[in-house]
């Protein structure tokens, strides 16, 4: 009886803690919708800012963010998947692969502002790409590489070993086994990981601070070497650098960013459900 009571108390505490985790998410959302929901008009989403950003829309920041994030994934996904294939399907456990694994773990622990400075030094200055979409995207792609490699590896290793075995036993080469058997079955996991990465880097400020983001540009980006506005950086600017900023627009911008990230995560979740329903082993 006594242990029963203890168990009840423990469960109650666990439930309370879980609610505490839940609470900030809900309150952030509620506040953003309450304060900024009214700002989300088509005009706000699809026009250029005006009057020193105190009115008008945030279109260039939305486009800038999408552009940077998509370019970053376009770079990091193939590299990450290939690295994951090597590590999971080919590499034996030796000094080289241990060093690579260590590097991946450590890369994941580097603060994002350090990536920003690194991107500034390498891409903006040394490779002379300037402050541009491409420099920001490359910086983010390096930052996101560890997580892409890790999720891709997990996706690959969740493909049953028996599939590989059968394929090899039919005289299919190792590479073609990976290409035709392992990869198709790992694609759902890889894609889900990629979209979650997209969502995460969409909100990053520090890595693009010195590499891609502009305070204000008068036109939409024309090429990848253009400097762009980006949602998180724009949000930072309008909340700290611009006097008399209507708070509705600040909250509206924040809400837009959160919704963007939320939609991406949702897409990942839906994708995962669809694929899980289809796979049955």
């Amino acid at each position: 009886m006594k242990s029963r009571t203890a168990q009840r108390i423990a469960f109650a505490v666990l439930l309370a803690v879980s609610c505490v985790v839940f609470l900030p998410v809900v309150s952030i959302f509620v506040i953003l919708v309450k304060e900024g929901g009214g700002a989300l008009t088509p005009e706000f989403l699809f026009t250029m800012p005006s009057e020193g950003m105190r009115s008008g829309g945030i279109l260039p920041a939305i486009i800038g963010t999408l552009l940077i994030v998509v370019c970053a994934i376009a770079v990091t996904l193939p590299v990450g998947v290939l690295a994951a294939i090597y590590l999971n399907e080919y590499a034996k456990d030796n000094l080289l692969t241990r060093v690579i694994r260590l590097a991946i773990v450590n890369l994941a622990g580097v603060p994002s502002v350090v990536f920003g400075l690194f991107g500034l030094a390498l891409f903006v200055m040394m490779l002379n790409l300037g402050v541009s979409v491409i420099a920001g995207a490359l910086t983010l792609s390096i930052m996101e590489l560890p997580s892409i490699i890790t999720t891709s590896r997990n996706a690959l290793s969740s493909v049953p070993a028996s599939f590989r075995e059968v394929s090899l036993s039919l005289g299919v080469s190792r590479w073609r086994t990976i290409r035709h058997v392992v990869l198709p079955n790992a694609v759902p996991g890889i894609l889900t990981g990629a979209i979650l990465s997209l969502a995460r880097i969409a909100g990053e400020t520090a890595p693009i601070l010195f590499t891609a983001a502009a305070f204000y540009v008068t036109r939409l980006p024309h090429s990848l070497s253009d400097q762009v506005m980006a949602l998180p950086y724009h949000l930072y600017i309008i909340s700290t650098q611009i006097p008399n900023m209507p708070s509705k627009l600040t909250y509206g911008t924040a809400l837009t960013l959160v919704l963007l990230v939320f939609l991406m995560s949702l897409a990942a979740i839906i994708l995962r459900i669809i694929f899980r329903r289809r796979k049955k082993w």
Partner: protein
Amino acid sequence: MKKITAAGLNLHYGTFHALIDVSLGIEPNKITAMIGPSGCGKSTLLRVFNRMNDAIEGVRVAGNVELDGENILAYRDDEAIDILRRKVGMVFQRPNPFPLSVFENVAFGMRIHKLARGRELEDRVAESLKAVLLWDALKDKLKRSALSLTLEQRQRLCIARLIAVTPDVILLDEPCSSLDPVATLKIEELMLELKKRYTIIIVTHNMAQAARVSDETGFMLLGRLVEFGETSRIFTAPQAKETEEYITGRYG
């Protein structure tokens, strides 16, 4: 002439000596059964014949194993091994079709090896399914997921997927151990049918099965091939004491 001969075959997993001086000859178009207690090296021996042990780290193989007079242990490059595996196919203990349709499972090897396409591919899929006596049951359900089949049908499908790439030799590693007795008998009938065209080696724990289907039987114990010969003789007049003890059920 023998289809496969092994002479002085030794295999180590790291420091563990899993096959010790194994020598035998496999007759073409016959069913050879390998029996013996768990862990004696039956699967290991089977996987020598299609070099599937290569994937395991720390395996060392020595000796001579010839397929049609060619030493398959001498193959060094991956391509030669891939070609060997098309000749010496394998059916696994657990039926393991891909999560694809019935058709795509059978077509898998032919597509990858570019053996057939279009109309011809369809014909050869049908042929393979007929050979494993699945055609009548599945000819209208080719688009169904292979995972919707019964275990016995799945195992047949795996055999169809294998014979679609035209092997010479079929290795079966306890192919019936996850099947019920009726399904087991049906797979055995299939084996008797298949031996007209293929050389078959089967590993089994089921001595009655070995006695029913095989022409020759090898008894293994702790990595050694204790006795090898005609099935009828092995089961009626075993020469080695260990064989007699095993087939009369005094071993595990």
